[in-house]
């Protein structure tokens, strides 16, 4: 058998699989940690979507009569997670609160991801003075502690849900800009970029089809992890009273604030929203870690 035939056979044995995306998905779904994360996050998403069906009561309906025995009744058969200081059903509030937390996380990370990626891609691909200028601005941006900056921005814009999303989005911009720039710079020197240039492929096509797709995977992983951080930051801002100003809004961070006074008599009011935040963040982190492994370019050759 000639070498060419052997080679052809060997290649045929390497089962032709689907695209790289499918391979990454396969690795992701076969990673136990990521799988647990996806199941938990899936449940939280379902909770958010079907909150009106799941919640046994309205999240804003007050039942002051139930508080006559003192604040605040703990878990019972009617109210699984107990009642809060105004007699509202805690379970219903957690269910509706999932909507706010996920929304804040997704919107703010999207803002940071889009703006940061644009800045990073320009800096990395154009280079020279433009790169230096963008990166110095990003350095200054990063020098300010993120959470402090978010507080400052919300203070400037006034408290509220949209303001929180903008603030958290803005503190994420430099992280993505820096990451994508580094990634683009690394990819730009690749042999395959040189090979594409050597046959006359246009610069724009090189950026779009050779550099960005390869540069994106660390950014996607970071975006996932940033989602968890964003939810925690949002809760933190809510806790500081910079969240939605309507106290009836069942935002998890805001819910924590209101319970500070009852920590000794009704610790469940702090524990339950706190746990909700922690579980969400952990499940997202598990997925992020799984993604990091699944998208690792070194894994692609098997």
């Amino acid at each position: 058998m000639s070498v060419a035939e052997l080679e052809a056979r060997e290649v045929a044995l390497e089962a032709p699989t689907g695209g790289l995306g499918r391979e990454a998905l396969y690795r992701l779904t076969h990673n136990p940690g990521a799988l647990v994360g996806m199941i938990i996050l899936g449940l939280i998403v379902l909770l958010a979507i079907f909150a009106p069906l799941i919640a046994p009561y309205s999240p804003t309906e007050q039942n002051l009569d139930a508080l006559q025995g003192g604040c605040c009744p703990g878990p019972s058969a009617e109210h699984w997670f107990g009642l809060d200081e105004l007699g509202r059903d805690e379970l219903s509030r957690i269910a509706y609160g999932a909507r706010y937390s996920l929304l804040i996380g997704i919107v703010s990370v999207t803002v940071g991801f889009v703006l940061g990626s644009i800045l990073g891609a320009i800096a990395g691909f154009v280079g020279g003075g433009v790169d230096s200028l963008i990166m110095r601005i990003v350095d200054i941006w990063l020098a300010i502690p993120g959470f402090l900056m978010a507080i400052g921005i919300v203070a400037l814009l006034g408290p509220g849900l949209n303001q929180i999303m903008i603030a958290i989005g803005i503190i994420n911009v430099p992280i993505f800009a820096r990451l994508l720039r580094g990634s683009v710079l690394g990819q730009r020197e690749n042999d395959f970029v040189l090979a594409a240039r050597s046959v006359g492929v246009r610069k724009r096509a090189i950026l779009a089809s050779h550099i960005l797709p390869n540069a994106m995977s660390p950014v996607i992983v970071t975006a996932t992890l940033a989602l968890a951080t964003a939810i925690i930051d949002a809760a933190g801002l809510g806790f500081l009273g910079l969240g939605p100003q309507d106290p009836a809004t069942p935002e998890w961070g805001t819910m924590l604030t209101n319970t500070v006074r009852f920590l000794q008599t009704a610790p469940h009011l702090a524990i339950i929203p706190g746990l909700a935040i922690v579980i969400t963040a952990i499940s997202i982190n598990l997925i992020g870690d799984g993604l990091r492994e699944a998208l690792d370019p070194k894994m692609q050759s098997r």
Partner: protein
Amino acid sequence: MKTRREPLLSVEDLRVEFWTRRGTVYAVNGISFGIAPGETLGIVGESGCGKSVTSLALLGILPRAGRVTGGTATLEGRDLLQLSDSQLRRIRGRDIAMIFQDPMTSLNPVLTIGRQIREALEAHFDLGKAEANERVAELLDRVGIPSPEARLKDYPHQFSGGMRQRAMIAMALACEPRILIADEPTTALDVTIQAQILELLRELVAERDAALILITHDLGVVAGMCERVNVMYAGMFVETGAAQQLFSRPRHPYTLGLLQSIPRLDATRKEALRPIEGAPRDMLRPPSACPFQPRCRYAVEESSREVPQLREREPGHFVACFNPVPAEEWQKTKAAAVG
């Protein structure tokens, strides 16, 4: 021996410098060559002597730090070194294309083979996707990839090294360039695959009457493939001649040194290899003497004062040396080795 034809590409006094933190690196210091259709020209030299930089400079794809500081490269009356990037882009792939050394890293892992070759076509022609795919399949078939229609949907990691190099060749050939630069096309491959790839290149050049510039450090490859050979050292050509002439009667001490440092199958076991002593020249200074002088057994007093120019010692055989090796020297060492 073929009669020499009008050159397709002629390079005169090409100079390339790199601006680095440690200072200016004089990578290519005035080299000249011409290549005609159907001809295979070899450029031989050790790592870092400026072989690859020469080809990148011709295509205008030097790294950022690199600058062409002098010379001309004329292709059909146009000086490639004076063209703007967008003019050059139209020439890359269409008139001159390049095959890179390492097929493992020269293909994008996230795109299919078909897509990458199609891109080369789309950069120059207005083709529909189906039409382009058909053309890609033809190309893959031509470079010897079995069941090309199915394979163009594969990703690079599903190809073996030899197959990837074939795919790279298909990409370089996509727009039927008249000049092909192969930069160490077989260095990263197994010996058996090397022979196949070289045979493929030879066929393709003959079939299209293209010109091939073969850059390598492998003297065996050059001897088997090229009509004319340039030996490069420290960014200069030190010896130029017909392959046969150059390998049977090397006149430059460096060429002789290269030949003597190759293990020979017919040598007696006691015969030790004779390496070239010393390290390659530090390229941070512009050449002011014979670049090979510090390592040279034949150096004369003049060698450390002046840069030797290429001079025709025998018809068609140019040597840049003040004290060329006697023409019979290599035959003598060979005879002694077989003893």
